[in-house]
């Protein structure tokens, strides 16, 4: 039930923020469409803790802040690569790909991990196969960085698996 309410609240907020018209007729249409979407989501069985991770609400902003700083750093590294002269570009650019094993359990945790890898410039998660994520990286250093597992530990620290209902 709480997931239904939170989905309703999110959809209503998006509708209100995007419409800008607050006459009774249009508000009624908005209510109708929000109720319809909630109904369809129920029929698709996607209203659960995976689509509405309410138990992460307090922990996520801290992770996003860390991820944002990480994105900033790796962006600068990739930009530095872009503007190198063509000789040092060949030297500094060492593309590598490897399968990185992860100990994360659960779809949500793995999706979060793989999407964080892809969102960080210089590393792209290509495929997930069992416990292994195939990662392609612009430099071998960033692969090593992933292997050290700081990102994984932070996602683990969020308590993604804790089912709170």
């Amino acid at each position, binding site marked *: 039930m709480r997931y239904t309410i939170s989905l309703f609240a999110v959809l209503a907020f998006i509708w209100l923020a995007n419409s800008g018209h607050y006459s009774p007729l249009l508000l009624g249409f908005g209510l109708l469409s929000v109720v319809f979407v909630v109904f369809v989501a129920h029929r698709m069985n996607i209203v659960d803790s995976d689509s509405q991770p309410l138990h992460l609400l307090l922990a996520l902003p801290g992770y996003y802040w860390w991820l944002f700083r990480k994105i900033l750093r790796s962006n600068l590294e990739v930009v530095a690569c872009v503007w190198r002269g063509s000789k040092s570009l060949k030297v500094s650019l060492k593309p590598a790909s490897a399968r990185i094993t992860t100990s994360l359990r659960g779809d949500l945790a793995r999706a979060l991990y793989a999407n964080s890898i892809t969102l960080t410039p210089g590393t792209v998660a290509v495929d997930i196969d069992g416990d292994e994520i*195939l990662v392609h990286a612009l430099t071998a250093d960033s692969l090593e960085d992933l292997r050290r597992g700081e990102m994984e530990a932070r996602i683990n620290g969020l308590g993604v698996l804790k089912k709170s209902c």
Partner: protein
Amino acid sequence: MIESVLVVVSGLALALGCFFMVSGAVGLLRFPDFYTRMHAAGITDTLATFLIVGGLMLIAGWSLALFKLGLILLFIFFTSPTASHALAKSAQHSELRLAESRAQYPEPAAVAAVEPEIAVAADTADRI
């Protein structure tokens, strides 16, 4: 006073964002193969978009436009990894498949083998 500071900061953010956009485009042209080019496109996905939309948010003032810009930023950050992953995965299913055993990716032989084909295709296109 505060408004002029906001305008200057937003101008700076927009200029920086443009610089990163151009960097991403230059990287897209300079990097040697498909996968590395995808990394260059990642700059435009994240930092450049953040700086440009953030710069616009600073001068939007407290209005509905501010919320909408925030939503745009949020959706771009949610959807761009999905798009990159779809690109990488479809490349993985095609001829650009990553070598499983080799850790080092760039294969000059493979690149050389692909390029003549493209040249041939361009030739036929010219004739048509």
